[in-house]
């Protein structure tokens, strides 16, 4: 499959679109269908497509296994960190109202960072699971 020019060219046309769409779904998730979970899997599927076409060695140059492990943990930490931050500001765990002066603005910031954490974790978990299976011989 790696040497088929048709598959290669179409995928190279599609991969930037998939990645861009993943980012759109991530950051526009408040207003349209989308959010961290969806964006994470869409972004990961774009990178997995690249890994399938170009082989894992090249894909690891873009998004290494080490980076995937670090990002998956930091996404979860970012999520929990927002909860701890709201606790330090005097509210309950994961109560975003206190994150900004205006409660609605605070909700907005809280949701933004939480969704970013979800997106990071989901993308890197999907990728490292894929790497683990393709590495296995």
């Amino acid at each position, binding site marked *: 499959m790696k040497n088929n020019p048709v598959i290669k060219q179409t995928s190279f046309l599609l991969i930037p679109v998939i990645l861009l769409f993943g980012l759109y*779904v991530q950051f526009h*998730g*408040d*207003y*349209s*269908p*989308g*959010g*961290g*979970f*969806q964006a994470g*899997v*869409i972004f*990961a*599927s774009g990178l*997995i497509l690249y890994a*399938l076409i170009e082989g894992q060695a090249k894909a690891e140059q873009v998004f290494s296994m080490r980076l995937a*492990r670090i990002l*998956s*943990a930091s*996404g*979860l930490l970012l*999520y*929990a960190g927002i*909860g701890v931050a709201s606790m330090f500001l005097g509210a309950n*765990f*994961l109560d*975003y109202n206190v994150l900004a002066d205006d409660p*609605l603005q605070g*909700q*907005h910031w*809280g*949701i933004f960072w*939480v*969704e970013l*954490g*979800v997106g990071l*974790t*989901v993308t890197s*978990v*999907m990728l*490292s*699971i*894929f790497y*683990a*299976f*393709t*590495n*296995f*011989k």
Partner: protein
Amino acid sequence: MEDIIIIFLLSLLAITAIAIIFMRNMLSVIMLGSIYSLLSAVIFVVLDAVDVAFTEAAVGAGISSVLFLSAFAVTGKRQVLKQKNKLIAFVTVSLTAAALIYATSDMPYVGDPNAPVQTHVAARYIEQSGSEVGIPNMVTAVLASYRGFDTLGEVAVVFTAMIAVLLLLLRREEEELDREK
């Protein structure tokens, strides 16, 4: 009109699932599984669950098929698909299904606005989320704000699953290296 579309799509889904039982070739089972996921994503769109459809299309038809294919490539291509205890399985499954179908006679119809599901907490989400959370997408508002604690747990589960996969698959390689020494 919408009813006809849903009935048509659900019937296609059932046919795909039945076809999976009778397949002899593992590769076609995996590909049918992928089609099955894509069909269910379409059904989710018709049932107004656009966010779910997104995820199902990317996960079911994309990532999980890739995972099945790569596991299939590792485990070897000569898999024999055999069925045993067909009769016992069929009887057990039919009895379970019959009991459940009998139970559906108590269920409210699909789309009934007065069903118990719609009258408790959902009304609050629909009416108040605009003023309490302030973002138009209710699914995101419930996911990240109202049920944020829940979602934190789900993310932790996904992360733990990754650790389990890495432990299972990577430890083997190290053992292999030890054996070679």
